[in-house]
């Protein structure tokens, strides 16, 4: 257990953590503005990944363009889901919203399974992304660097958007208190749409980046990451965007170090560990690290 090994785990943890962070931020944005846990969030990521693998990756386009393509796919799909399903249920009870969210998730997952079959599909990557670079004994994949870069860039852009643009500020206002925002003359439908679009775009980005990192994607890939994104958002403080980001990084590091530091026989318990962490957080500090006010917890 030398320094190089630990450093390697740190790098791995930051990479997977950034993926979780992107997903968690998207999930948190939607929850913040609609009080809805979008169960379909993971499936948005999956569809973007599968579609990119099938139609775009083979074209060998310039990677950033591919990433934007995946993001647009995710964003558009998210908006479609919102318009078709969630928008009609604005006044519905919590249970009904939840159930609808589950239904959309199942629809997307099953649809993808029927379209693409359960077999994992290869995600074509340019050499720059798939290659392992060595820096002082530590191996970093090109894709990992892309993930880290994307995470930082999107956080910066989001922060700018929500503090410097009218629509972004309106989004924050609606998330904070729908009724007061309404009274202030803000029409909530556009900010809601924006929140969905942006959040789903991040899911789409996560999908493409996942494909770059692992080299393969499958229709079953969305379920567990969605749960982990939720865990990350809870750790960081649900409703808080910087919190969700932080939570993602923390979760990624925790997961990797758990597997890396314990003997190999325990690596199968990785997900058990992650969810045990969730229960712990919910018991001890439900508002998360950068928690928002207690009254809006549920």
């Amino acid at each position, binding site marked *: 257990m030398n320094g190089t*090994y630990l450093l390697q785990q740190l790098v791995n943890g930051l990479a997977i953590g950034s993926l979780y962070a992107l997903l968690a931020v998207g999930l948190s944005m939607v929850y913040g503005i609609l009080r809805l846990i979008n169960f379909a969030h993971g499936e948005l990521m999956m569809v973007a990944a599968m579609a990119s693998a099938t139609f775009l990756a083979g074209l060998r386009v310039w990677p950033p363009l591919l990433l934007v393509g995946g993001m647009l796919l995710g964003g558009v799909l998210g908006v479609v889901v919102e318009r078709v399903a969630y928008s009609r249920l604005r006044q519905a009870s919590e249970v009904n919203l939840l159930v609808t969210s589950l239904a959309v998730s199942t629809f997307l997952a099953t649809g993808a399974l029927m379209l693409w079959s359960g077999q*994992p599909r*290869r995600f074509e990557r340019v050499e720059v992304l798939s290659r392992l670079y060595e820096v002082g004994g530590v191996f970093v994949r090109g894709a990992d660097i892309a993930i880290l870069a994307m995470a930082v860039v999107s956080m910066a852009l989001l922060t700018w958007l929500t503090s410097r643009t009218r629509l972004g500020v309106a989004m924050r206002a609606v998330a904070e208190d729908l009724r007061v925002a309404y009274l202030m003359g803000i029409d909530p439908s556009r900010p809601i749409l924006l929140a969905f679009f942006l959040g789903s775009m991040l899911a789409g980005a996560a999908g493409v980046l996942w494909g770059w990192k692992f080299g393969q994607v499958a229709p079953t890939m969305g379920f567990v990451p969605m749960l982990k994104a939720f865990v990350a958002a809870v750790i960081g403080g649900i409703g808080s965007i910087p919190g969700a980001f932080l939570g993602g990084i923390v979760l990624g590091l925790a997961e990797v170090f758990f597997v890396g530091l314990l003997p*190999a026989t325990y690596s199968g318990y990785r997900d058990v560990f992650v969810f045990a962490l969730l229960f712990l957080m919910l018991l001890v500090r439900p508002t998360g690290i950068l928690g928002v006010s207690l009254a809006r917890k549920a």
Partner: protein
Amino acid sequence: MLRRALIFLLPMLIVPLAAAQIRIGSLYNVTGDMSSIDAPGNNGLRLAAKLINESGGLLGQQVEVVTVDGQTDQTQLTNAASRLVNVENVVAVAGINDSTFALAAGPVMQAAGVPFVIAGATLPTLPEQIGDYAFMVPFGDDAQSFAIVDFAIDQLGVETYYMLYDQAYDFTLAVREFANQRFAERLGAGALLLEDSYQSGDADFSSQIARLRALPTPPDAIFMSSVPSDAGNLVQQFREAGFDQPILSADGFDTPLIVEVAGDLSDGVYFSTHTSLSSDDPQVREFVAAYEAEYGHPPENAFAALGYDAMMLIADAIRRAGSADPAAIRDALADTQGLDLVTGTITYAPGSRVPTKSVTIIGVQGGEYLFQAEVTP
């Protein structure tokens, strides 16, 4: 009165006409994770039935194959087996290439007294565990594991190795056990430098790779006990991480996925399997030609041949029994001696339902699956 009698008699006429068909069940996971080996298996089976029908059928009757898909889900598979046996009333069931699924569905056939000819699952204790109505077409995992290990030691000069196995299947656990056993027998306990495991479906092997890299001396070979759906991935990730040693495996690697996923990184992969489809053996060539004529492309892997052989084995038993009664078929199967099939010769020693067959070793080179050797344990 007469009219009523006629209406009563009419079904009695139709029933014997309908029964002029021998119904065989094809039980495979045509969709889902196992599809890369099960779909070809089903194809092979149906091809054999078609050829039998073209040359006159069995006992003067046509063979009808009923395929039910297990969807690579144990519950679905068991329901499918029940449907074949109870609703479709087949006289024998053939299929399944994985031992865990064979164990799940086998009891259904055994309880119903219908012979179950296991096409491709290789756990040597299957017939014992399921019962006297279960027969295996392929060799056991002990035979194939010993064969690939012997090949590695004798032909590739391997003296040390790394073992990576899948925890999710009886098959992969058995191969790991037998391979370790053979290596220890021939090279001593020190030959195994490191052992590690994963769960089928894992996307990322970086932890295992990191642990392998941490070894002071690299192993001469990497043994991967895996099922087809993970094969391509494993090869790709380990090769990308810079491991150039020969990669060894059992028939779980007999899948086009290796070349499809890992591309030219798949050079230096060796595995044991049931037959080489590029062999000069006239029976193999005949099978390959017929398969290509029927399906428009050559057989994907040896499991296609195994499905074909399963049907031929049943046909041979029916001919010798002179009847399509399940119990009679079972007895005839148990007496099979020296039956020459595409994947080898089947003889069941008295009391055993696992054949002793030769093992074929295949090596991947330049995107091609090339014959290396034939080993008889």
